[in-house]
Each structure stands twice: as structure tokens, then as C-alpha cells.
């Protein structure tokens, strides 16, 4: 393997990621760290999906927490109320969320800019309100308990087990994302971001690709939502709040739009940040808002791409 291949994201990057998630637990001083780490991994997977839409496709979504919550509630209700096996419930929820995203995606993704932001935000808020209101099904604002996740009679129990599930899922999600963006489909999607009309005149059905990636990113969110529900054992409608949707977008933006590993880095930083600021809990919203503004003003490409550009410049200067 030569140096170029080592540096190529699909080989070197993926291997590095696998190495980091495998070794990270060695640095965890106690069990509580596993809990935080699982949340970071879960957020990272959602962000890898969201980045396909926002970063590569150039289509903003301010409602993805809604899809996450639908996945979570789908699993909670199907397993709890109807006794469906968790894996089947996860798949069914993901299929339903995918179908929903596909249907609403058609009219929504015809919109651009502020209108698209408003429409996706509206979808997210409506989902949140429905989950809060239909308390006979969802348990209402007080939330609902969720059974353990079992596969063939084996339960995924404890934060350590969940860590490996999350780590595996993340490596898989990153692999898929890297494959996609380097395929004809993925290039077409990035072209949509570059110039819609430019893509159309060489045969790219831009509407189709926007809907497809919107659906794919919603399915990512739904699957993680399902797992999160089982892992947490208890969920409330606030996992689908507007604030959560904003948080997800901020992770993508901070790490670096149109960078798969950037999305992972952004998710990990913003998940760990509240832990570091634990004694400044009141300032959490201010910090989040400040990060959003600061990133866009001073580092619009995000952490990882800016870092890469800086390294390139230094190497060129040397």
C-alpha cells in the first residue's frame, strides 16, 4: 500500500476511524464515560447521514430530530405495545420514516434557501407536537419506557455493549457515506450543490437525487433513534424538539460541511462539550449559539476542511 492510498479517505481514513473507536475505551476512566461515548457515536451516525444532505447536497434541514424521534417512538411503541421483536421494529420504523421523508421530500425539496429551512423546520415541529399531544399512543410529554434491545434472544445490555454497537454502526455509516459520495450518484448529488441547472443539462434528475438523499438521511436518523430508545430505556418527545434539530445541524456545520469525518468530529465535540461545561450548565445555549455564529463567520468551511486547507498551505510554503 502506497502513501497516497494511506491518505485516501476510503482506506486510510476508515482504518484510522476504526482504530480510534477501538482504542478509545482504554482512555475511559469509568463507566459513565461509556454512556457519553455512546451518545457521541449515535450523534455521529446521524450527522454522517445529515451531512450527505446538508454538506454534499447543499439542502438544509432543520427538522431531522423529528425523524430521529419517529424512529425512537416507532421502536418503543412497536416493541412495547405490540410485542414486535426489536430488530423488526427498527426496520419497520426506518421503512415508515423513509416513506414519510420520500413523500414530503418531493414538494419540500423544490424549495430553496429560507423557504426550505422553514418547511423542514415546520415538519420537525409538527412531529414534535404530535408526539407530545397523542398521549394515548406516545405517553405524551411525560415520555414512554422502552424495552431492552434483543437479537435472537440475546439482550444488548449495559453501556459497554452499546458502545460496540455504536462503534460498529459508525464505521459502517462512514464507509457507506464515503462510497456514496465517490459514486456516480454521489457526484450527481454534489453537482446539485454546485449548480442545479448545470447538473440538469447533462442528464442529472436533480429532484430525484435531492429526495433520495433526504430519504437516506432520514433513515439514518430513524435507525439511530430506534437504537437510542432501546439504549436509554426511556424517551420523551423532546428528543425531537426544534432545539435538537438545530444541535444536529450545528454538529455538521462545526465539523465541516461536505466532510464525512468532519461530521463525526463535530458530533463528538458537541456531545462532549456539555460534559466539560457541566458546572456552567446555564451557559450551554449561549455556547451553542456562539459556536454556530462563530463557525459561520470565521470558519465557514468548518473545522476539518479548514484544518486541511491550513496544512496544505503550510506544505506548499515549505
Amino acid at each position: 500500500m502506497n502513501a497516497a492510498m494511506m491518505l485516501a479517505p476510503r482506506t486510510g481514513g476508515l482504518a484510522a476511524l476504526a482504530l480510534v473507536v477501538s482504542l478509545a475505551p482504554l482512555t475511559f476512566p469509568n463507566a459513565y464515560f461509556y454512556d457519553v461515548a455512546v451518545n457521541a457515536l449515535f450523534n455521529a451516525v446521524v450527522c454522517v447521514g445529515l451531512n450527505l444532505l446538508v454538506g454534499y447536497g447543499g439542502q438544509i434541514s432543520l427538522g431531522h430530530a423529528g425523524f430521529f424521534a419517529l424512529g425512537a417512538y416507532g421502536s418503543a411503541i412497536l416493541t412495547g405495545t405490540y410485542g414486535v421483536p426489536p430488530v423488526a421494529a427498527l426496520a419497520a420504523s426506518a421503512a415508515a420514516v423513509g416513506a414519510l421523508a420520500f413523500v414530503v421530500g418531493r414538494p419540500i425539496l423544490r424549495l430553496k434557501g429560507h423557504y426550505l429551512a422553514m418547511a423542514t423546520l415546520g415538519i420537525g415541529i409538527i412531529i414534535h407536537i404530535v408526539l407530545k399531544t397523542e398521549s394515548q399512543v406516545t405517553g405524551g410529554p411525560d415520555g414512554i419506557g422502552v424495552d431492552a434491545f434483543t437479537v435472537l434472544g440475546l439482550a444488548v445490555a449495559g453501556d459497554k455493549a452499546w458502545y460496540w454497537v455504536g462503534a460498529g454502526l459508525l464505521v459502517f455509516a462512514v464507509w457507506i457515506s464515503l462510497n456514496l459520495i465517490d459514486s456516480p450518484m454521489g457526484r450527481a448529488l454534489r453537482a446539485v450543490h454546485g449548480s442545479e441547472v448545470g447538473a440538469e443539462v447533462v442528464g442529472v434528475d436533480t429532484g430525484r437525487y435531492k429526495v433520495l438523499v433526504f430519504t437516506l438521511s432520514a433513515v439514518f436518523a430513524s435507525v439511530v433513534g430506534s437504537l437510542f430508545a432501546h439504549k436509554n430505556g426511556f424517551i420523551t418527545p423532546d428528543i425531537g424538539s426544534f432545539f435538537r434539530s438545530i444541535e444536529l445541524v450545528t454538529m455538521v456545520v462545526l465539523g465541516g460541511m461536505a466532510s464525512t469525518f468532519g461530521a463525526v468530529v463535530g458530533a463528538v465535540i458537541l456531545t462532549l462539550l456539555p460534559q466539560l461545561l457541566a458546572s456552567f450548565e446555564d451557559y450551554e445555549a449561549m455556547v451553542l449559539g456562539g459556536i454556530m455564529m462563530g463557525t459561520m463567520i470565521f470558519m465557514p468551511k468548518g473545522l476539518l476542511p479548514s484544518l486541511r486547507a491550513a496544512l496544505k498551505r503550510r506544505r506548499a510554503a515549505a
Partner: protein
Amino acid sequence: MFAEFLQYVFAGLTSGAIYALAGLGFAIIYNASHVINFAQGEFIMIGGMSTATMVAAGIPLPVAAAAAVLVTMLVGVALEKFAVEPAKGADVTAIVIITIGASIFLRGAAQVVWDKEFHALPAFSGETPIAVLGATLMPQSVWVVGVSMAVIALLWWFFNRTLFGKAMLATSFNRLAAQLVGIGVKKVLMVSFALSAMLGAVGGIVVTPITFTNYEAGIMLGLKGFSAAVLGGLGNGLGAIVGGLVVGIAEALASGYLSSAYKDAIAFVIILLVLFFMPSGLFGKKGTDRV
């Protein structure tokens, strides 16, 4: 029957007036800069919260209200100066993220400066209901609608009768031409944020005796104001006012006759329907992309 309907309409007009003010705030900033300021709702919150605090501290209402409007306008100008202006030339997604970031920042700041509790203001002229055709009207609702109308009239005068106001309108139509006749775009941008903040603050002050306010009261009001602005046709002042009243009344009727739990969802259902079927709104112009 009719009395009940009238009751809902009164409620709808009251909240609709606030949405109209917020929508107008969106329209003014949008016209000056093509920025959608998602922090518009925070102006409403800051106006209400600062007045409530000052009144609670014994400052007379008119003084407190005037000071609160001033404070909010300063926040608006600061927002423009430190968050929007440095991002000049950024794409729409970046601007959306910046103003949402500002909204969350202000919300967080309010939580630090004040607290998470609800704050109240006494009604301006008592709480004796006025009977109208079998329905009752709270005096504060009259204040809300009356003050809103006064502010809107003032704005109309500013944009149509003063040199600077006309210049601001000119900028929205043709930035280059405005620059050629010596109108500073930067100044226009700053004034547009100050005016929008003023509209928000006034709305927040008059509505607080009815709804109370807390650090996160702004978000919903702001988003509904945006719905109003889009419904009316983005950038159209009259459209924003009509849009605000339509959203307010639709919300009141739906929560009265259908389900009060879904009250907050109504504005978003309306906005989705408008965006899907009538993207240029009630009074907006259709545009063609140039290639």
C-alpha cells in the same frame, strides 16, 4: 354560537397583531439585506422580559417600556454589527445558521440574565372585560391591537414620508442605484435591524400582560411571525400584516373548534401548504431565475 365565534376572533386578532409586528420585522430586514432574521422572536422576548423586570422593580410602566424598546434596539443593532455584517456574501444556508445561532445565543443569555421563570406585567388599564355582542373583550387586547396599529402607521409614515425611509425602500429595489445616489447600505442595514427590534419589543411589551413571558417565549412567536411574512409574500409589508392576522385567527379558530393542543401546529401547517401550493405567498411577485 356567534358570540363564541366572535370570542375566538378577538383572541385571534390579539395574537395576530403580534405575529403581524414580527412578520413586518422580517419583511423590513429581508428588504434591506435579503437576510431572514430567525432571531426576530428574541426581540419580542427581550422587550417583554426587560419591561416586566423594570416594572417589578418599581419603575413606572411608560419609562420601563421606553427603556426596554431602547435596550432591544441596541441588541438588534449589535446583532447586525457583530453577526450579520461580518458574514456578508455568505450563502443562504450560512445566514440561516448564523441568525438561528443568534436566536439561541440570546435565549441562553436571557436565561443567564434573568431565569427560567415566567414573568408577568399588570394589564395597562385594568382587567374589567368589555362586553361586545355577547363576547367579552379584555382591555389589554384593545391595547395590543391599538398599539400595533399605531406602530404600523408610524412605519408607513417613515417609509413614505421621510427621506431616509424612502431611501431604505430604494435600497431594497436597487442596491447599486441607492449607492450611486449616496445612500449608505451599511446604515440602511443597521436601521432595518433597529426598526425590526423596535417592532418586536413593542409587540412583546403589549402582549406580556396577556401571555406572560419567559426566556424561550420568543422562538414560537418569531417562527409564527415568519409564517406570517411568507404567507403574505416575503418582503411585502402589507402582506406580512394580513398574513399575521390570518395566522392568528386561523390558530384561534382551530384551537377553539378543533383541538387546543394543536394550536401551535396550525401556523406550520399553513406555512407548509403555502410553500407547497403558493410559494410566492398572497401578495408576492413571481420570479424567474436567470441562467
